[in-house]
Structures are given as C-alpha cells and as structure tokens.
C-alpha cells in the first residue's frame, strides 16, 4: 500500500524533534530531543502532565506551529517517506486532514458554531477530493456520521455543533477526522471532557475504527487508565523530554523511571485494595523556561544524588533496548528500589 512498507523506515518516524517558543519571558523549551516511531495499525500513548510537551509534539507533526512566528521547530518528522519539518506549507496542507488528522479535546471550540456539522464534514472531504460533487460528498458525510454511531445521521447532518450533546459532538469530530481515511490519527485528550460512560463508548469507537481502517493512532492523555486501554507502546514525557518509552505492558508492569512510579503511585485504582495514603510525586512540574540543570526531574526525585552529583549536572540519555529510560540510577539499583520500595505501595 505505501512505499514505506517495503522500506526500512517506519510509517511515522520522529528524530530529535525540538520545539521552542520565543516569548517575552524567555525561550520556552516545549519539546527537547524527542525521538520515536510508529507503525500502521498500532497505537502509541503519550502520557504526561500539563506542560510536559505532549500536545506540542503532536501539533508539530501536523505542522500547526508553522503559522506561529515565534515557534522554532527542528529535527526530522518522516511520514511515509516524506519529511515534514523541511516540507513547504503547501505540502503539509495537503497531508493535514487527509493522510493525517487530529481529534481535539474540546469539540465545541474545534468546530465552527456558524456552520452545520454536516457542511463542515463535507468541506473537509471536498478540500482533499476536489473533483467530488456536493451530493456525493454529502452522502459520504452522512455515511461517516452513521459509522461513528450518531443516530438519524440524515437529520443530524443539518444540526449545529451546539445542538449535539458532548459525546455526540466528539463522535461528530471523529467523523470529520476520519472522512478522508487518514493513515495517521492523533487524538489529543479526546475523552477528558467526557463522562466515564461516554468515555468508554468513545474509546471503544476509536478501537473499532482503527481495526477497520488500520490507521496509526497517537493517543495523548494524562489518564494512565486510558493509555492502558488502548496503547501498544507508551511514551512518558516530563519537562519536554521523553523519559521512558516501551511496550505498554512493560511500562505498566515494570516502570523504570521514578517519575513513572510517582504517576502510578498518585492514582487510586479500582482494581486494587484501598490504600491508606496515596504516594504522589512531591513538588510541582518545572517551568519550561527555566528547566532544572541535569535531569529535569531531580528536584522532585527522591533518589536524586544517590550516585554522586550527576543528576544535578548531567542530562540522562534515553537508554535501553525495547524498553528505554532516561535515568542516572544504574539498572540493577532501579529494579531493586522498584521491587522493594515502590511496588508494595502501588
């Protein structure tokens, strides 16, 4: 199907991606040295707290920083053998909404209030299929609305976004994103604004549609539960850097980074007995303008300084085979701490 399949290059490959914003307060280092890849049919979960750089990474893939004069993007983004950082605006515009599409967190602000939901889907379709007449495009849009589980799609086609409930609106946005059969779908906190029962419906829908279309999905979220539901691989981001990455099962069962331990210790879980106390990470996330020296996590890390001063001066590299981690602690010591101190309290 794609040229990439015969080539060694993965479907999506991101190499040493850096995103900087120049602001009045200083340079915001939103993403630093991000490297990862994704194959078709697979789901990558990106986890992190606000300001960890997870959304900025995905916006960079879509080239949405291009219009912002204060944004500096460097590195390489390869989508199916096309490099996007150096591509022209016109090239990126052709891909955006076509080969790659995005689902945003808040469908009410992502959809135009002045046009009907149907006409917005039709527009998205016709932009990428200029030869198609209105009638065919309308049928396609109604078909998509039906596919994402909106009842009475012919009637809802003429409704405005505000006439939809939160869950239905998110479905409509998924329909719009999928109308051109994107090979890469980026979902940025797609269920955060929704109730749990609706969230379950939407996650189910994304899973079914991915099976049907075989797209690659990037799922960005702060909710480790959502990641565990969908992702094949997981990236954990902190202070604009990838600090742990690996297959979802490994990251959840044998997390390697102290920050990942903290995230898991922070959340009460329905599948475990009630703990007396939660074990949160102390302190708060760093400012991306003044990142701490050395390991960005060291001011909050209970184990920083265990092996001399390296944590305070030297940025740890992301190391490992399939399951990688950026931490100065030697692997044996990390395993020991996890087994003895962390796991009993999870």
């Amino acid at each position, binding site marked *: 199907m794609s040229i990439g399949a015969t080539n060694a290059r993965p479907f999506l490959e991101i190499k040493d991606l850096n995103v900087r914003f120049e602001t009045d307060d200083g340079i915001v280092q939103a993403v630093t040295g991000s490297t990862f890849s994704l194959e078709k049919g697979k789901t990558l979960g990106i986890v992190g*707290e*606000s300001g960890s750089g997870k959304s900025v990474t995905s916006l960079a893939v879509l080239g949405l920083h291009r219009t912002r004069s204060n944004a500096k993007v460097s590195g390489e983004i390869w989508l199916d053998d096309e490099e996007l950082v150096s591509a022209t605006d016109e090239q990126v515009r052709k891909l955006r909404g076509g080969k790659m599409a995005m689902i945003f967190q808040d469908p009410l602000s992502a959809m135009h209030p002045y046009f009907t939901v149907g006409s917005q889907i039709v527009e998205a379709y016709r932009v990428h299929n200029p030869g198609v007449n209105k009638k065919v495009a309308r049928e396609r849009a109604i078909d998509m609305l039906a596919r994402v589980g909106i009842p009475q799609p012919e009637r809802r086609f003429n409704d405005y976004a505000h006439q939809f*409930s*939160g*869950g*239905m609106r998110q479905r409509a946005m998924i329909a719009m994103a999928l109308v051109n059969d994107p090979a890469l779908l980026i979902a940025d906190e797609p269920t955060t604004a929704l*109730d*749990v*029962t*609706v*969230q*379950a*419906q939407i*996650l*189910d829908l994304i*899973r*079914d549609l991915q099976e049907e279309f075989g797209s690659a999905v990037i799922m960005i979220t*702060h*909710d*480790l*539960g*959502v*990641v*565990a*539901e969908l*992702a094949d691989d997981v990236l954990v981001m902190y202070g604009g850097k990838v600090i742990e990455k690996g297959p*979802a*099962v490994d990251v*959840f*069962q044998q997390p390697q980074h102290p920050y990942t331990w*903290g*995230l*898991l*210790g*922070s*959340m*009460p*879980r*329905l*599948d475990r007995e*009630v*703990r007396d*106390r*939660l*074990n*949160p*990470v*102390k302190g*708060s*996330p760093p400012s991306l303008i003044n990142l701490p020296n050395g390991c960005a996590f060291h001011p909050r890390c209970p184990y920083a300084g265990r092996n001399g001063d390296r944590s305070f001066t030297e940025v740890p590299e992301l190391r490992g085979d399939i399951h990688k981690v950026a931490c100065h602690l030697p692997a044996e010591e990390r395993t020991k701490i996890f087994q003895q101190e962390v796991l009993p309290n999870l």
Partner: protein
Amino acid sequence: MSENLLEVKGLEKHFPITKGLFKRQVGAVRAVDGIDIEVKAGETLGLVGESGCGKSTTGRLFTRILEPTGGTITFEGEDISHKSVTQLRPLRRDVQMIFQDPYSSLNPRHTVGSIISAPLQIQNIPTPQGLKKAVQELLELVGLNPEHYNRYPHEFSGGQRQRIGIARALALRPKLIIADEPVSALDVSIQAQVVNLLDDLQREFDLTYVFIAHDLSVVRHISDRVAVMYLGKVVEVAERDDLYRNPRHPYTVALMSAVPVPDPVRRDRAQRDRVLLTGDVPSPINPPSGCRFRTRCWKAQDICATEEPPLVTRLDDPASHLTACHFPVVEDEAVAGRRPAATPA
C-alpha cells in the same frame, strides 16, 4: 460517627424556564428532585454521578448557597431550608465550601492574605496575634509558604491555588466542608497531594466532608460512604466497601465497569466485562416516568415505566445499603455481554 450533622428530606431544586416579556414559566429543570440523605458527624460522604445528575446543585443546597424549592435541610437539628442571608451567617462558620476551579474561585485582584482573612473579618473572629499571623498559620497548615501572604492568585500554580481555597475554607474552623470536584482540574501528581492534604486535615480537625466528584477511583479512596446520583435522584447509597464490592443498581454497575483499568494485561477482560450504556442522559426538564434510568437500562421491564422504585434495602444487603431499583443486580450476575457491539475476539 452515628450522629447526623446534616439531614435532608425530600430535597428538591427546580430551576424555572421562562419565556417571553413577562417571564412566564413554561417549565422547570428538575436538577434535584427528591433526595433523602444524611451526613454523619466525622464521616466523608462521597457524591458521584455524571454531569447533569444534580450533584453540584445538591452540594450548593447543603451549604444553602441555593434555596431549595421543596423539602427540608436540617443542620445540627435546626431547620435551615429557608433562612435568610443574615440568618444564615452563623451557619457559615460551621459549613464551608471548596470549589472545583482554582482559577475562577479566587478573586484575582485580592492578595492571598485578604482572600483567606475575609471570612475571619466578616465573622468578627478575634485573632489574638493579629490577622496576618492567623493567615500565615493557615498557609502553613495547607503546605504553602507563609511568606507568600502578600502575593496574588496568578503567582501560584493550580495545585497551590486549590490549597489557598482550602485554607480559606478552614479559616473559620468549620464542622462540615462541601468539596465540589476539588481535584478534578489538577494534574495527577498534584491531585494526590491535595487528596492527602484533605485526609490529614480531616484527622486533625475532626472535619466532616461531602466530597462531590465524577471520578469513582478518587471517591472510593476518600469516602466512608458513597451515594450515586442519576438525573436528580440518589439511586444507590452504601458504605464504601459494600458499594464497590456489591453494586446493586444497574447504573452503578455500568459506571464502575466504565472506569479504565491502568493495567494493559487486564485490558481484554476489562473490555469484556464492560457494560456499555447507549444513548445520553435524558433531559432533566422532562425526565422519564417511573425509574429514570429505565431508558438506558438493560434490565428494564414494564413496571419500571409505571412505578418509581423507592430507595430501600434490597436482597440481603445491610441496612445501610439502599438501592432504588426494581431489579437489583445480584452478585456474579452475568452483566457482561450487554455490549450492543460485538465483543472483541
């Protein structure tokens, strides 16, 4: 533990919908529509439900920020349902509130010092060592730097702002604190810090909490007793462990099964066991007859449309476990396979 601090009976709040020049009332949003519940001294009562179920309105009625359109609210044996603002002032010492949004619940033009000292000044509370000292003690109590009393809210992060809100609620040493989604706007690691803080403060000051949230895991962690709300009604209430082990109401079962489990190994099982509800919550302007959940319930029968199920003890449940359902879910009942779509192979 058994003494009731707050009791409500038949509590109702209907917001009128008006039309035209003369504001003729054409209907009402029945946000809270007949609730009986009590809050025992020293406990944490969790109130869960999805958006629009009336849980926030209930919290606001408890604090009498809103006046009920029906029913009674009794605080320490005194009927406070229809007291005026001046009559309520002594009550404000005993009942305080923590809000969800730490950005809009603090006045951006006031310093932290004046935000936290306002309740003390309004209530004329004597501060023997001065107002500043009192504020600094409160800041320290919630884990903030006491030197920061002169700063403005925008100089603090979300988690720190929520701590300011907690300090303000604590200033009058209340007996009851209503916390409306106090952690849902915060990052995961900060959420846990605030939950732990609320735990510590409860122990230190013998506080009683009503904890309103949509996150079932957080509610389970913090509550002694949990009430589940749906469309303006309490559909189930029980001791925490009892409720999470033996949920009786189909809605409670569906709600719990929808929570994603942070364990990819159990993913398939979690998906198989999931009860997927179809459709949306009906409008509270025109709720379904009989049982309000019947339009989305897989167990609904004719009686559900005609007769509203009372909130009572069902099956062999303890007396504290009440369920409003004609066909409560029994243990090990095969609730799975209720998914409208095919289960994944």
